[in-house]
């Protein structure tokens, strides 16, 4: 477990750096891919609700400090996203091939809408038209990212059931 936490922490740190320095400026067909959200969802699916919530909070806090935004903003959203995805992974989404793609599509939409509402509540600029216009392309880009990211995350954080156990026969 500590090894998993360290791997996840390293992965998410790297992803936060890439998200802030590279992906933040990417605009494809009006959509903005969110590598951090995609990675967090993949980690949460593989490691469960609590792990996902803690990972989301930590990564979100790091992202908030990196952009001098409202501290706790991304942390709150990613905590809820990590927890919800983790719960889904632990229950109905277990062993289902479409779980990562379904989770990403739903979480991306909820994340964008929640961010919009939160920004509105904080009195920050909340251009709903732009966000809803970019929602489709953003979901599509996140879905495209999901396949390689989930594959990488699964290599890094293999589900426990898949770890080969040695069995010693008695007698």
């Amino acid at each position, binding site marked *: 477990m500590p090894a998993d936490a360290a791997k996840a922490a390293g992965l998410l740190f790297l992803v936060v*750096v890439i998200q802030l*320095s*590279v992906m933040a400026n990417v605009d494809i067909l009006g959509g903005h891919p969110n590598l951090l959200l995609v990675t967090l969802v993949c980690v949460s699916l593989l490691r469960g*609700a609590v792990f996902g*919530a803690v990972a989301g*909070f930590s990564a979100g806090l790091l992202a908030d*400090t*990196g952009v001098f935004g409202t501290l706790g903003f991304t*942390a709150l959203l990613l905590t809820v996203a990590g927890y919800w995805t983790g719960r889904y992974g632990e229950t109905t989404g277990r062993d289902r091939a479409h779980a990562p793609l379904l989770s990403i599509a739903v979480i991306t939409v909820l994340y964008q809408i929640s961010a919009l509402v939160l920004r509105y509540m904080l009195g920050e600029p909340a251009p709903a038209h732009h966000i809803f216009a970019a929602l489709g392309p953003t979901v599509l880009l996140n879905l495209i990212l999901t396949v390689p990211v989930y594959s990488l995350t699964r290599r890094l954080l293999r589900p426990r059931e898949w770890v080969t156990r040695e069995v010693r026969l008695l007698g």
Partner: protein
Amino acid sequence: MVGGLVLLSLLLITISFRSGSGGAVNRIEGAGATVLRPFEVAAERVARPFRDVYGYFAGLVHVKRENSRLKQQVNELRQQALQGQSAQEQNRVLKGQLKWVDSPQFPKDYLPVNTRIISWASEFEQQVVIAAGSDRGIKQDTPIVTRDGLVGRVTDMTGSAAQVTLLTDENSAVQARDQTTGARGLVRHGQGQGSLLLDFVPKEANVQVGDVIVTAGTRSKQYPSLFPGGIQIGVVTSVGQSDTALYKQIQIDSYVDFSALDAVTALITNKRTPKAP
């Protein structure tokens, strides 16, 4: 645990929202940014070539779209410029027409009705339709002129439009005179399309190339002319005569460009006019 993280996030948001710049939260953010900065710079340097390549191709798409939009804009502006030029030219013609109507050259006892050509009968017929009819006082045989000279006469009409048979039509004929020498004749269509002849001018009459031909007007009250006198028709371009012919052969170049008619003036009068044959 999760509830605690959510509460902590809300607490952080509240503190961050309430504390301005220079607070404890800002210091935490500063520290985080300081830690992330070297990694961000490194990642940005690694990603820059890829981003430049992407930016180049994205720029091409944008330029293509921009090019299409600008082409459309150029077309619209070109159309507007053409409309503006057309309106300017029309304005110039109408101003000239009004100036002529107010000048002493405008025939007495006539009222002007300024109007426009709205259609041409056909390529081969020397007739046009004007946008004024009997509602504006136009009658059968009402003379139609421009400031350049005589155009023709009304041959048919409705309440709001009238058909004008041009001077160049084979059925048109106008009593005319040489403004310089007073020699009289009949202006009618020539051999070529749009050409005019001054016919029935006696051989002894003096007509020179360059003389201006105008309408003769009414000479006898018993037989009044359809057209008021003194309206310019054209200029003499050639004068010839043969031993066998009874009259001089005089060609006229009309002052009016019949192929580019636009604004015209109908001359309205209450005087009795003879019935055209």
